[in-house]
């Protein structure tokens, strides 16, 4: 090396190696470098599988949504309850989340990346072997999040993958409830997380979850989708079937409520994508529907009840102008009071749109958000309840449903008229969607966090069970 070159490894300090924060969810997996404000990598947790010319191929990332493949089927390594079911695939999906945008597929051999001058003939021969087993995270510590009800086995498996498969030098596993509280700048909070497959209520006190108070139920975003599907089935003047874009070659403009006039595409049966692919793409349309149309009845009383001024709420809702929506095949309709109904069962189980074919059984009252909060508070010490109620943190992408926080506020004020109820819901969309990732980003970049990492050496000494002792 030329001695006049000022920068050397020593000068820009080893502690600048930024950790990677990985926040796997049921619907999406978020990954990014600690210290940044949004995850740079956001991929669906779903992956596609198809075989082409006798070879089985896998697709990860957004590509799944864009190009249909012959015989493509969609899978998710994570079960409906948020616990990993297929570890091999979970590892691959997670690996894709950070290799695709952050670390690159395989780090180049430092001897050949052009940054180091190596005199001819000095290539150490043994480097060949090292390069072959280069691991994707060999130089980045990894902080991962998990749900509060993650079983011990799953936690141990996670650290094993991180340490043995990815070769991370340091690892930590944090509860996503705690991280969401951190993202809101609170060490104690009641975190209400409305996710895709689950809604959960997690009491956090001084940065620790209170295990007895953790509640969760399956009434998440996917449940709302199933409610919307139920609504479409019983829709008047005609039931609506969602036909995703990939099955349509062109559409024509039709009047509202008129049958669609679109040209459809057909695939030969041996090449047609699996029904799981279709339902994934239908979900895209549904999430657009949720963004554009669906609204939570603002309260203060239930949609089925009578409002404070004596008018039945449903009539009130009916009198408000509807919201139009056009489906990929061109069918369009204005949705009136129905747009409130599909989410009402998050607060009032009796209001659920009945659908016998749905994947989701009819909800019970105990699964609704207000009841979960009640149960969570019931599980914690009486002394800290007022403090938690004053720090209710609402997070999760499904909480972005129009009017959700207003309604939640009304419900809480009715249930707890005495104590001061204060809901804190970040207004910024990405803060709401990625709050547990952001909390992880904050945590991993704290100087004081350094002592918390589980190092590779400790893992080698104590085995995977160390995660139970260190990450509480």
């Amino acid at each position, binding site marked *: 090396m030329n001695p006049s070159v000022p920068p050397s490894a020593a000068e820009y300090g080893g502690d600048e190696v930024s950790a990677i924060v990985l926040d796997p969810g049921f619907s999406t997996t978020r990954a990014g470098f600690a210290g940044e404000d949004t995850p740079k990598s956001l991929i669906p947790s779903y992956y596609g599988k198809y075989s082409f010319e006798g070879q089985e191929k896998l697709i990860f990332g957004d*590509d799944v949504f864009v190009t249909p493949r012959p015989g493509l089927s969609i899978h998710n390594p994570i079960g409906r309850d948020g616990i990993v079911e297929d570890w091999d695939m979970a590892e691959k999906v997670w690996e894709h989340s950070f290799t695709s945008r952050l670390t690159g597929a395989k780090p180049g051999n430092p001897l050949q990346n052009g940054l180091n001058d190596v005199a001819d003939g000095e290539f150490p021969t043994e480097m060949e072997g090292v390069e072959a087993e280069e691991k994707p995270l060999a130089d980045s510590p990894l902080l991962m999040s998990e749900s509060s009800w993650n079983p011990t086995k799953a936690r141990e498996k996670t650290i094993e993958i991180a340490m043995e498969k990815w070769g991370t030098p340091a690892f930590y596993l944090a509860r996503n409830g705690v991280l969401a509280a951190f993202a809101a700048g609170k060490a104690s909070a009641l975190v209400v997380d409305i996710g895709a497959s689950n809604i959960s209520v997690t009491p956090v006190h001084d940065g620790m979850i209170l295990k007895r108070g953790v509640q969760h139920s399956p009434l998440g975003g996917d449940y709302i989708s199933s409610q919307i599907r139920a609504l479409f089935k019983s829709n008047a003047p005609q039931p609506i079937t969602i036909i995703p874009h990939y099955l349509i070659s062109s559409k024509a403009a039709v009047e509202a409520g008129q049958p669609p006039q679109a040209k459809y595409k057909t695939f030969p049966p041996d090449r047609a994508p699996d029904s799981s692919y279709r339902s994934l793409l239908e979900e895209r349309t549904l999430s657009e529907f949720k963004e554009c149309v669906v609204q939570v009845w603002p309260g203060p009383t239930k949609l089925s009840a009578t409002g404070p001024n004596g008018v039945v709420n449903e009539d009130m809702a009916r009198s408000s102008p509807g919201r139009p929506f056009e489906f990929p095949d061109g069918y369009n309709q204005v949705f009136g009071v129905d747009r409130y109904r599909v989410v009402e069962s998050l607060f009032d189980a009796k209001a659920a749109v009945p659908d016998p074919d749905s994947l989701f059984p009819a909800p019970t009252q105990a699964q609704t958000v207000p009841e979960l909060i009640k149960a969570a508070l019931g599980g914690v010490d009486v002394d800290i309840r007022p403090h938690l109620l004053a720090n209710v943190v609402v997070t999760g992408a499904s909480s972005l449903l129009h009017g959700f926080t207003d309604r939640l506020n009304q419900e809480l004020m009715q249930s707890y008229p005495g104590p001061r109820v204060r809901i804190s819901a970040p207004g910024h969309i990405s803060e709401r969607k990625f709050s547990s990732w952001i909390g992880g980003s904050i945590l991993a970049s704290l100087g004081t966090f350094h002592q918390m990492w589980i190092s590779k050496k400790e893992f080698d000494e104590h085995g995977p069970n160390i995660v139970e002792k260190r990450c509480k």
Partner: protein
Amino acid sequence: MPPFKDEHILIIAPGSQVTLAQLGLPESFTPARFRFPTRMFPAEKKGEYEPYRIRERRQELKPANGHNAPKDVEMKGAEPTAQEGTGNSDVVKTEGSEEQKAEKTDNVAEGEPQEGAENGQTVEEIFYEEDVASDEGAIFPMENGRIMDWSCFFALLTHIHNTLSPPFHTPIMLIAEPVWSLRDREAITQFVFEKFKTPAFCLMDSALAVCYGYGTATATVVDVGKDKVDVTAVTDFVVNEHGRGIALEGCGGDYMTDRLVELLRSKGFSREMCEQLKQSNITELLPQGTPLPGTAATAQQDINHTSGSADAREGSDEGALKSQNGSAENEEDEGVLDVAAIVSGDASASDYIAKREQEKSVLKKSADQNAKALRLPNSKKEKATFQYQQFVRLEPDKDAPTGPGRFIRQTRDIEVGIERFLAATPKQKIEDRLSSGILEDIATQIHHTILAVPDATKRSDLWDSLIVVGNGSKIKGFTQALLGTINQKFVLSPSGTIFTSEIPSNFSTPIPTGGTNTPAPQGLSGPMHHPGGPGVNPLLVAATHSNNPAASNMPPGTPQMDPLSHHRSTGHSQTPTSVRTVKPPEYFAEWKEQSAPNAAQNASGPPGPGGPASGGGNRGMEEAVFLGAQVASKVIFVLDQGLSKGFMSRVEYNENGPSAIHEYFM
């Protein structure tokens, strides 16, 4: 730090095929002054690269003086090993791999005895020459934007840096491909600071650079490359990473070449011919529903046509491949392109010029012929011709076997039928994707990308500001055809919805809760603007913003609807209600001229004749990324001077290391 000067700024925009570079910002921004082919050739020493292919040729000489002979070696390349003389073992090693194996005599391996031998024994001398036109053995360090071979990529950067040889106080602007990961960017940052010792470095995303070029803060940038497409939504000069279409494979210009090959192979077209056909001005993508010339009016070009009927059409068209200028074949005086020969004096300059003249007159003649036929617009003609140029390496002359390789350019006119309108139709070959054609794939990706933008209020603007760049999109009618596909598949019908919708709900009660942000009236640009959120009457918002510049973006023809439709664009309504492209800026004269339809001269030489071709030549707004890079350099390095952290300075690098580029990355 003294301010940076315009003439010192170095801009490099790497691409998978061509890397654009320029030192200094001209008075009025021009297309890139240098175009380097993005490839290098492995040098004799492992890990080193040469910009041109080095050939080696041997010749037997009778040395007048045995010891001096090796010094006469003609050295055109900067071959370090060559300088060490013929005795070097490295040279011997490569010799073995060369074709001239047969020539190898036993005594070559031992240079010493050979040199020592006197008495007029024949000595073999090795000539090194740069073969500027050859691609053989080249390594392309980038593939679909990804850097596959780092040492080669860095060697290319070094070569560019050396060629332009900027002064010390040169800030560097490098255009980053979207597909580069953060670690890739760190590695490049480290390389640039440590090798080039630059005082300031800016790594700018190519999509953002395009926005600078077009002077717009919010746009959907579609970059059609050789074999990939990037679709990026940029809002307020921020790239939306989530849902971005990155290096969508099989959607670039190569797709269209492949399709033409598929259509025309039976007529004896080679891939190279199809490539030139694609680049010629007779190939067009017609708007959907346009009847193809010469076919029955009912047969329409349909993007979603099954390939079967395309076959039928193919069959109806026969004998498309006709060589008109039959005499052109192998006619040496048609035009000899032999730069090296001129330089080395093998052919006299006047001779060369005479040949060029001749060539020009031939061109003119054919142009005249074309002019007669040009009465009809191309899209109405059933058949059209394009000029195909081919470079053939001549056998070395008998009398001068030492001369550098000579090339002959053959030109002939080839007639093509309606296949030339079908470049974007679905391929016949069974592929592992089910979509119908490149346009649909790109349209779907655009839809996905815009839908993934979290700020729903921006989506409508994004649909209304589409920018299509990249040399893959150069084919005539590409953008229009893409817009047509989007219109067909995604644009919402205005029926019914526009009148019944969006009358604000009048009963949502404002509730002051903790973090729920009451949208400020100016919440238009605020990301927390919760549409129709508690308390604020959206009509009021719309009314207070009726003179907002965004309102002028609304579709014309519905002036009375303005407040309502304006609310639509800000509310959480479905998109797109319309789709359109952004007009390129008009104040860059050099760019404007070139965005005129490309002349017949389009096929300007073989793919990647070696060496940085100077001058732009036929470069239009497809390379707007380079215009944007110049605008951005001016803003970031000269006007702003680092106030808003536009670039990373050397001080910063020394303090924080390469990973600090994450904060500066634009």
